[in-house]
């Protein structure tokens, strides 16, 4: 089912990515897979007349010690033993010895899930703690039309680019204030809103019918097969909401009846495979869409005055736009926090909506380091090399795309030469105290004071501003 996006030719980067597929040509051992499934849902294999339906396996029943149709665990062990005796054609087979079959269940190797009784995989309950995030969300980065509602950050910190951002860089500061101050911090109260009642209220506000069902910890209401609107609420630190209405999809295809010779579907005979786009009419103007999103926020119980609502610019080459996209940026003290709601409208109305429902609650005023100290933190392993991110303003990035020259062989390094070891030296000239969304190890989201530190060229770094005494450096987990 390879569906390439039309119009865009494949490019070198994408081709390399395709070629780097680690599973190309890898096939699982279907017998082992089937046995693993049978352990969990044995009833899925019993035929109506009592014969066993064995998907993907040879017709002959497994020969081996013990009853052939005995306990699933025996069968599983038998199949594993047979697999080991076979020549290891796949990578997986070469490491087969690691697996341990637990009592009536299936224990994994390293990274064990909690052992569960055979055939019973209990529903997800509470979330396990998550590793501390390495990237602070940008203090006030331009939205740039990203779809993520948590404020995506360029996580360049984990990449060891020698000499470039986050790699070997030292920071100095020039003339920044040396006095600390204080600032307010907030928590996002997701736990206070995550409940079936909340989802029902949201579904009601958005016109979604249906009962609330649970789906791997998240709550969902509406259509189960993408024929109608659905809305879901995620058990994450922001109580993220995602709403989608295929019937108002700006690029939706008219549904063609699969039955042949049936001319009832829309009165046109459309060939299968051709997408006849539904005509919803012109989408609302940017200004109208902004007003509509403000109304939606109000019906969801949020205060639109706390958001800066901006319509995305239409692509200049689109003659008849089919959709208008609008983003509501949460604003605190005149600064965007990175938390947002984004909506797409077609001529038929609201087609999709994503956003953070958790309300912000002030949790106190915290002491904050001086800008000069903040620059020192950039070189502090507790904050740097992961606690900070760097991003360059658009103009700087453009300078990087230089036409590569024809490669030549490098001159051989001479005897006794000093080895080049490039280190970037950055002088921070400006500091702005703002706010950044941060996720605690357990997923809870907070909005805490952070500095945006920039150099003369306009490159910027961010670092948390709260003083050491009000941070808890205990290792995660």
């Amino acid at each position, binding site marked *: 089912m*390879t*569906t390439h*996006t039309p119009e865009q030719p494949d490019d*070198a980067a*994408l081709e390399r*990515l395709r070629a*780097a597929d*680690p*599973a190309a040509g890898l*096939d*699982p*051992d*279907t017998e*082992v*897979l089937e046995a*693993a*499934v049978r352990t*969990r*849902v044995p*009833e899925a*294999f019993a*035929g*109506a007349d009592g014969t066993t*339906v*064995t*998907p993907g396996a040879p017709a002959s029943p497994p020969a081996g010690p013990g009853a052939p149709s005995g306990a699933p665990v025996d069968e599983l062990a038998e199949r594993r033993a047979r697999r080991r005796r076979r020549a290891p054609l796949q990578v*997986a087979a070469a490491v087969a*010895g*690691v697996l341990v079959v637990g009592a009536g269940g299936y224990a*994994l*190797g*390293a*990274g064990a899930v909690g052992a569960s009784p055979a055939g019973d995989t209990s529903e997800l309950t509470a979330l*396990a*703690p998550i*590793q501390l*995030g*390495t990237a602070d969300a940008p203090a006030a980065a331009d939205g740039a*039309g*990203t779809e*993520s509602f*948590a404020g*995506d950050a*360029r*996580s360049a910190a984990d990449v060891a680019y020698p*000499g470039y951002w986050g790699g070997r860089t030292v920071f100095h500061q020039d003339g920044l204030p040396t006095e600390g101050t204080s600032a307010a911090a907030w928590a996002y109260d997701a736990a206070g809103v995550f409940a079936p009642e909340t989802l029902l209220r949201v579904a009601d506000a958005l016109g979604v019918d249906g009962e609330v069902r649970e789906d791997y910890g998240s709550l969902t209401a509406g259509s*189960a*097969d993408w024929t109608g609107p659905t809305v879901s609420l995620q058990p994450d630190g922001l109580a*993220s909401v*995602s709403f*989608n209405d295929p019937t108002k999809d*700006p*690029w939706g295809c008219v549904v063609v009846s699969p*039955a042949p010779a049936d001319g009832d579907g829309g009165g046109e005979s459309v060939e299968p495979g051709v997408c006849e786009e539904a005509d919803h009419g012109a989408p609302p103007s940017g200004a109208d869409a902004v007003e509509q999103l403000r109304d939606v926020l109000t019906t969801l119980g949020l205060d639109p005055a706390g958001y800066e609502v901006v319509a995305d610019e239409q692509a200049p080459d689109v003659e008849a736009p089919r959709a208008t996209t609008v983003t509501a940026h949460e604003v605190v003290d005149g600064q965007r926090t990175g938390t947002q709601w984004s909506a797409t409208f*077609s001529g038929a109305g609201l087609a*999709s909506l994503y956003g953070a429902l958790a309300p912000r609650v002030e949790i106190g005023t915290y002491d904050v380091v001086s800008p000069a100290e903040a620059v020192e933190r950039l070189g502090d392993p507790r904050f740097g090399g992961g606690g900070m991110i760097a991003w360059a303003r658009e103009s700087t990035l453009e300078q*990087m*795309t*230089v036409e590569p020259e024809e490669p030549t062989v490098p001159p051989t390094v001479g005897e006794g030469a000093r080895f080049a070891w*490039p280190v970037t030296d950055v002088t921070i000239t400006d500091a702005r105290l703002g706010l950044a969304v941060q996720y605690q190890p357990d997923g809870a989201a907070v909005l805490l004071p952070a500095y945006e530190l920039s150099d003369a060229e306009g490159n910027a770094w961010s670092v948390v501003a709260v003083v050491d005494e009000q941070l808890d450096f205990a290792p995660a987990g």
Partner: protein
Amino acid sequence: MTTDEGTDAAVHDEAWFAALFAAHATPVHRYFRRRLPSAAGAVGPDAEDLTAEVLATAWRRRDDVPDGAELPWLYRTAGFVLANHRRKARAVPVAELPEQPDDGADVEHVVVQDDEVRRALAGLSDRDRRILLLHAWEGLGGDDLAAVLGTSRGGADAALSRARSRLRAAWAEQAAVAQEQGA
């Protein structure tokens, strides 16, 4: 104009499940093989178990599996299963990539041998990475991609288009940096 639901809709019984398994077990398994870190000896069994988990879910929720769009539904479920697995499998030390809650699926700790590709990917957002891998490795686009992401077709097309241009930009920037240092 009347549709007879009984004849058009397939009955999701054992035979349906056997066909589902035969058709889709391998792609789902590959999905996991691509996204599990190859810590010593743990890849194979993990991927098999997670695949079995997805298929078992398909049986338990067989009424929800849409006809004609089974594989996207399976991939979507696989995303949830993988996110859940990562939250619990803390014994495996994963790279310092941020684990931020996304729309149900987590960061792709990709298994990429090609160093340049991995570096280019590392500079992208979680969402871009996720979309690019679903497109480049699972071969998803259009309606299928939208179904797996849980968004509208237009949203998926737009998101993929943006992710692809960000990848191109990261790739070009990387090539320029390398050139600059080689000079």
